[in-house]
């Protein structure tokens, strides 16, 4: 356990050092983030013109969802994107062999090797929006609700990670998974808006099949103190399920890799 912890620290400090080599990237990411955020708040404001509401969500409540989305996007950019899009290169260049021969879990290595520090401002800004908007809605932000909020964020992140890792792991068969990742990202964009704003069929899909709702809507409901216990339990079950599936799939994929690669 201590070994894993020390490894993470070294992974990330080297990641930090190698990103310093490209300072410009940091600035670009920052600009892109600000552009994306102001763009989506602008689009959101179009829904609320003429005093309308969006799926029973008030403007401030909908802003909480934007905040959660920004936070998740920040985590994605910091951890998921840099690591999981690399897996295909490990396979293509054959350096996966080195990873497999390290006395450390290969899924751990592949999922956590890199950390993009450009994601941090986005994470902070996302949380700021969440709490700022929560206060603006006038609700009483209790410690309990905040705790539930972080639990539901964790649930959402585990689900997202597992689905993404599943796609990335399939690069052992398909050399390019870039497109599948694009589909995932396009669908995730649906999480910018409250799940109740969608037609019923999509609501079902986004809750059970591709649990977008767990990424943004449910954490936002948690802040507002509206999240039902059933949903938390369902979330815990789903995230465990997805994580176990991703784990089993990786073991299966490695079995294929070691019996078919040359």
């Amino acid at each position, binding site marked *: 356990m201590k*070994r894993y912890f*020390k*490894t993470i*620290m*070294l*992974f990330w400090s*080297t990641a930090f*050092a*190698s990103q310093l*080599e490209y300072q410009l990237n940091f600035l670009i990411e920052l600009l892109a983030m600000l552009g994306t955020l102001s763009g989506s708040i602008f689009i959101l404001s179009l829904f609320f013109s003429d005093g309308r509401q969006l799926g029973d969500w008030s403007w401030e409540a909908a802003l909480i969802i934007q905040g959660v989305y920004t936070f998740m996007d920040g985590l994605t950019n910091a951890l998921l994107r840099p690591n999981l899009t690399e897996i295909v290169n490990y396979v293509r*260049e*054959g*350096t996966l*062999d*080195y990873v*497999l*021969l*390290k*006395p*450390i879990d290969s899924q751990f*290595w592949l999922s956590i090797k890199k950390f993009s520090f450009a994601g941090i401002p986005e994470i902070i800004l996302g949380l700021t929006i969440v709490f700022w908007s929560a206060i603006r809605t006038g609700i009483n932000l209790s410690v309990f609700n905040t705790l539930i909020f972080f639990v539901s964020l964790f649930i959402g992140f585990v689900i997202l990670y597992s689905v993404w890792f599943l796609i990335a792991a399939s690069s052992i068969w398909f050399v390019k998974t870039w497109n599948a990742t694009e589909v995932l990202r396009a669908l995730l964009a649906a999480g910018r808006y409250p799940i109740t704003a969608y037609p019923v069929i999509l609501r079902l899909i986004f809750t059970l099949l591709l649990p977008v709702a767990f990424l943004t809507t449910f954490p936002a409901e948690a802040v507002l103190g509206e999240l039902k216990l059933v949903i938390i339990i369902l979330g815990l079950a789903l995230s465990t399920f997805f994580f176990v599936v991703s784990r089993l799939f990786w073991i299966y994929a490695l*079995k294929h890799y*070691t*019996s*078919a*690669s*040359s």
Partner: protein
Amino acid sequence: MQDNPRELIRVDQLSKIYRVADKQPGFKGTLSHFFNRRTYKVPAVKDVSFNIFPGEIVGFLGANGAGKTTLLKMMCGLIHPSKGLVNVGGFLPQRRQTAFLKEITLVMGQKQQLIWDLPPMDSLYVNAAVYGLSDEITKKRINELADMLELGEELTRPVRKLSLGQRMKSELLAALLHHPSVLFLDEPTLGLDVNAQARVRSFLSEYNKQTGATILLTSHYMADIIALCPRVICIHNGSLFYDGDLDSLANSLSPSREVRVELKKAYFPEQFVSYGEIQELNDRFVCLLVSRSKLTEVVGKILSDFEVIDLEISDPPIDKLIGELFLKGEIS
């Protein structure tokens, strides 16, 4: 790994069969491929057995696609065998247990593991953490190995700014940091210039002497094999056809030696026929192939029968011999 004083690696009737899908070209081929996938078996390694003892340096020889790399990867646990058994120091490699992984290392000449944008030193400390080495031990080992490899400030320069030779030496350092007792090297000198090749070679032989580590390597450069490996294992079309020392391989491949003679004046070809097989005849220069058993006798006769200016006896170059052998596809 020392509990078995006898063989360190036991390979017993090892086979690897790949299933390859057979696909006809074109759209129709794609369709029938999709619905009715026909596969056939390609044996990459067939029924190979050998033992390797602690401290040995063994070279694996074979043409491209002969099965060398597959064999090597089965021994380090990256490929599951289809049949047969591999045992490395009491472990089944394919299970890749931590204790096993800490005892081995793999270096592939054409694939690198160092972080491209950073100095090798950073990658070294990452590796140290992965293998659970303490900071002091890491520092001490880096110093030792850097000395042996003649690496200095290169370790603090970004990898992308290093020459190929410096990069390979750093790769070796990274691969040996945890003091593995078995080294698997797949083409470790690929693409290096002659000097860098020589340095890698002398390092490996020194490392072997100092630590008693077992080294298994494949190489395209015969010079590597000649300099490093007292024992070679030749693989041809997936099967083992020679396992023994290098010199007797040369003998068994070619029981003859080359005799080059420079003469005072030119002679006719017929005059040499009784001495040996004429390889080359060019004005005053002649090259004959003479079997080892008759060598002294024939050389003496040449010296007395002709006016000789210079005479040279040599083995036919081994890489030429092996190259010819692989070309012919003949196994004696």
